[in-house]
């Protein structure tokens, strides 16, 4: 009897799977074309741009106050952080000093927004790993609490447009401090719930540990930022390395992962939520009554010519605004440096060689917002 080696017997062909733009696990309109050999991913080609709205071009036609509203629409899960980069870029160009009270309130709102955004991540990631919606509903309850507070302050649930060059649009509500404390107490329990639901779950650990690993050197080379970079072991947090607002005056820890896999990204984000709570509590004690805008603000903002690249630490990483002004009341060029854009570039490296099911989990662990990627 002659036996044939399997490779002579069969000719196998890789299967191309088109995941997205309509797919429940792509977090928006993201498309990745997977080349799979059985269950193993051999290649990934990402296609973005389905949400491209020409925001940078539009911003060139909007004056410095109109542009704020557009920033909300780029990063619809961390709107305050996006606004912050924009208004701070304008302030930097115009050399405006922001009153203390405004800075503290900005910090509180940005950290609350980080909380709400990470809650969204914990919920959505649970669904990616395959929990049937349970984590999702619990995470949304917590997020809802925070959004309620935002609505009370800004009048809108998602598109706040509340920060202004120089300070804030209007004073916060009278019961602001009490309400923030109330929300924080609920959120603390929420963090505990989300942590308890998944972190020590055996299947969750089996699914997330050791996949999507990216080394510190690779993460830096790909330009990753935020929790993705910190999970790989690089303690790079703009709040720490280049403190803006009042971050130099508060105490907080930067969680840094040791392995760089999906599980580390989860742990880092959970820990960041705890640190956010810590930061907000300190901010609340330091918040003093005072003006929220500088005394003399022009009706029409005009900047001197110049350029600035202003970056802040948004929940997903570095949200940068590169603003070039040639004088006048609108930017000559506005580039939005999106954290997800850079993080998503590294997806191919992380995914190749893993299983199809892991591709979804790895994508979920990057926590992308497609509106921010495509701008």
């Amino acid at each position, binding site marked *: 009897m002659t036996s044939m080696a399997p490779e002579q017997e069969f000719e196998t062909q890789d299967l191309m799977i088109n995941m997205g733009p309509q797919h429940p696990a792509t977090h928006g309109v993201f498309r990745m074309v997977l080349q799979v050999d059985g269950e193993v991913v051999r290649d990934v080609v990402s296609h*973005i*741009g389905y949400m*491209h709205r*020409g925001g*940078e*071009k*539009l911003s060139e*036609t909007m004056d410095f106050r109109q542009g704020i509203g557009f920033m909300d629409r780029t990063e619809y899960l961390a709107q305050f952080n996006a606004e912050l980069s924009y208004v701070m870029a304008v302030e*930097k*160009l115009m050399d405006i000093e922001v009153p203390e009270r405004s800075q503290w309130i900005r910090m509180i709102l940005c950290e609350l927004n980080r909380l709400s955004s990470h809650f969204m991540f914990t919920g959505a990631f649970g669904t990616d790993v395959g929990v049937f919606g349970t984590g999702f509903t619990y995470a949304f309850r917590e997020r809802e609490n925070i959004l309620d507070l935002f609505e009370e302050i800004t009048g809108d649930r998602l598109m706040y447009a509340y920060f202004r060059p120089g300070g804030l649009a209007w004073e916060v509500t009278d019961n602001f401090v009490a309400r923030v404390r109330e929300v924080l107490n609920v959120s603390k329990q929420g963090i505990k719930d989300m942590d308890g639901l998944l972190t020590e779950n055996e299947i969750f650990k089996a699914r997330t540990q050791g996949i999507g690993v990216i080394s510190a050197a690779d993460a*830096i*080379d*790909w*330009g990753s930022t935020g929790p993705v970079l910190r999970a790989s072991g*690089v303690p*790079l947090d703009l709040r720490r*390395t280049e403190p803006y607002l009042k971050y130099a005056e508060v105490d907080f820890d930067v969680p840094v992962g040791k392995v760089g896999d999906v599980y580390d990204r989860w742990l880092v984000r959970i820990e960041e939520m705890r640190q956010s709570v810590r930061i907000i509590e300190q901010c609340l004690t330091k918040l003093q009554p005072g003006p929220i805008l500088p005394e003399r603000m022009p009706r029409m903002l005009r900047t001197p*010519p*110049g*350029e*600035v*690249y*202003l*970056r802040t630490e948004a929940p997903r990483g*570095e949200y*940068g605004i*590169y603003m*070039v002004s040639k004088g006048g009341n609108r930017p*000559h*060029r506005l*580039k939005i*440096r999106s954290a997800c*854009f*850079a993080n998503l*570039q590294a997806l191919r490296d992380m995914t190749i060689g893993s299983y199809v099911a892991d591709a979804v989990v790895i994508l979920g662990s990057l926590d992308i917002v497609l509106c921010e990627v*495509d*701008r």
Partner: protein
Amino acid sequence: MTSEDAAAAPLQSFDGTIWSAVDKALSGISAQPERGVQDVIVHIPRDEVIRGLRALKTNADMAFDYLRCLTCVDNEGDGMDVVYMLYSTTKGHNLTVKAHLDANDLHLDTATTVWRAANWYEREVMEMFGVRFRNHPDPRTLLMPEDLTDTFPLRKDHPLAEIEVLQGEGIAWATEESV
């Protein structure tokens, strides 16, 4: 500001900035400094920019291992500036590098050989500004449709709202008849 302007203003002080160290790292490359609002800006001629960037990355004192952002600015008739925002994760300092391109010769070597992160940024600049990066590993469009390669939306001469794109059929500029 273009490199000519920067050269015309040599009286700016660079005390307390990293310019002197950058200058040392960029020996043999004609770089011009400029005091930006936040970071120091270094103008490097187009032909030398990749060599300069690699020197900045490999130099032990500089160690700019992290490309924050890469973008382009259209200077309206005065060519374009390709801008690199650099950061060093080990040293913690920032630098902005600019390369000036003439409007009639929008070619530049790719920076993907220095940082892989430059890949998508360069693709975006290619489709938005029409700057060609030589030897780019993957020169497809990124955000725009695949067939939209003959118009560059972020250029200043590009109209903002009067374009009607018919995918797969090229581009039809909306005229009064078509509206």
